C-alpha cells in the first residue's frame, strides 16, 4: 500500500502561478466594463477551472485512487439538479443576463 514519495514541487508552483494569473484576469475583466452576459459566463467558467485545479492537483485527486474522485464529484450531481431548477427561474426572469 505504501508508495515511494514523489516530489511535486514544480507542479504545485505551476498551479499556483496559473491560479494567480486567472485571478488577475478575473479582476481585470470586471474593471474594463465588458458586456454582462459574456462576462458572467466567462467568470463562472474561470472560477470552475480554478476550483478544478485546486481539487485535482492540491487535493491530490489526480494522484489518489479513483474511489475518492467518486466521493468528490458526487455533490456535482446535486449541483446539476440545482442548476436545472435555477435555469427555470432564468427562463421566467429574462431581464437578468439572457
Amino acid at each position, binding site marked *: 500500500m505504501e508508495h515511494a514519495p514523489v516530489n*511535486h514541487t514544480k507542479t504545485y508552483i505551476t498551479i499556483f502561478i496559473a491560479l*494567480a494569473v486567472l485571478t488577475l484576469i478575473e479582476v481585470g475583466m470586471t474593471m474594463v466594463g465588458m458586456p454582462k452576459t459574456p462576462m458572467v459566463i466567462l467568470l463562472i467558467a474561470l472560477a470552475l477551472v480554478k476550483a478544478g485545479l485546486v481539487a485535482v492537483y*492540491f*487535493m491530490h485527486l489526480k494522484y489518489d485512487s479513483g474511489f475518492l474522485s467518486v466521493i468528490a464529484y458526487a455533490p456535482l450531481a446535486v449541483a446539476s439538479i440545482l442548476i436545472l431548477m435555477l435555469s427555470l*427561474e432564468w427562463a421566467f426572469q429574462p431581464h437578468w443576463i439572457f
Partner: protein
Amino acid sequence: MSEIALHNTHSEEHHAEAPVYTSTGTPMGKVFMWLFLCQDALMFMGFFAAYISVRIGAGDLWPGPENHAHGIEHYPLDIPLTAINTFVLICSSVTMVMAVQAATFKNIKKTIMWLLVTVVGGSIFLGVQYGEYSHLILKDHMGMGNSLFDATFFSLTGFHGIHVFSGVLYLLALTIALWMGPLDKHKKDNYWFINLFRLVCLGVTVFLFIGPTKTWPGLPHVLIPLVAGAAPYIFVRGISWFRKRQDTAEVVEIAGLYWHFVDLIWIILFTLVYLI
C-alpha cells in the same frame, strides 16, 4: 469464546502501528474527510443556490461592480482588497501543499514551518475580512436585516469565514502537536494544567450561554460562547487527539484536504459574490 476475544484484542494491539486502510486501499481517515467535505460542499451549494435565485429575482436592482464602474449605484464591496485576500488564501493553499509534501518525505521541521506559514496566511485572511466587515457595518451601515444584498453577503462570507477560523485552529493544533514531538499512539500526555484549562473552557461556555449573552439578541448568544469557550476546548482537545495519531503524513494530508476545500469554496464565492 473469551479466549478468542482475548486473542483478537491481542492481535489488534500487535498490529496497531499499521495505518487503517479501507477495502479500496485508501486510508480510512482520508475517506471520511472526503465524505465530510462532500456534505459541506452540499451545504455551501444550498447557500449558493439561494443566493443565485435571490439575485435573479432582483434583476438589475442588485448592486454590481459594473454599475459602480458607470457611476449608477454605490457598490460597497472592495474588489482589489478582496482580490489581494484571495491571493493570500491561494498562497496559503500552496504552503499547505508544501507542508503535506514535507510530511510525506518525513521532514517534520519543514512540515511545521510550512504549517505555520499557512496559519499566518489564514490569519491574514481573517484579519482583512474583519477589517472589511467593520468598514461595511460601521461606515456603509450594512446589516443582516437591511437588504437581501447585505443578508446574502454576510451569510455566505460569514459561513466561509467560520470555516477559515476553524481551519486556522485545526492547523495550529496540528502544528503544536507536531512541535511537541513525534506522534505516538501509546503516549499518554496527561498534564493537570491542560485538564484544568479544559474544565475552565467548559465552565466559560456554559456560563456565557446561560449568563450575560442571554440578553443579547440573535447570533451573538450562540457565537460568543462558542468562540470564547468551546473553540479553545476543542483546540486543546485536538492537540492531544493529534498526539495519539500514528501516521504523520496521513494526518497532515487530511488537514490539507480541509484547507484546500476552504480555498476552493472561496474561489467560487469570490466570483459569485464580489465579481459578478
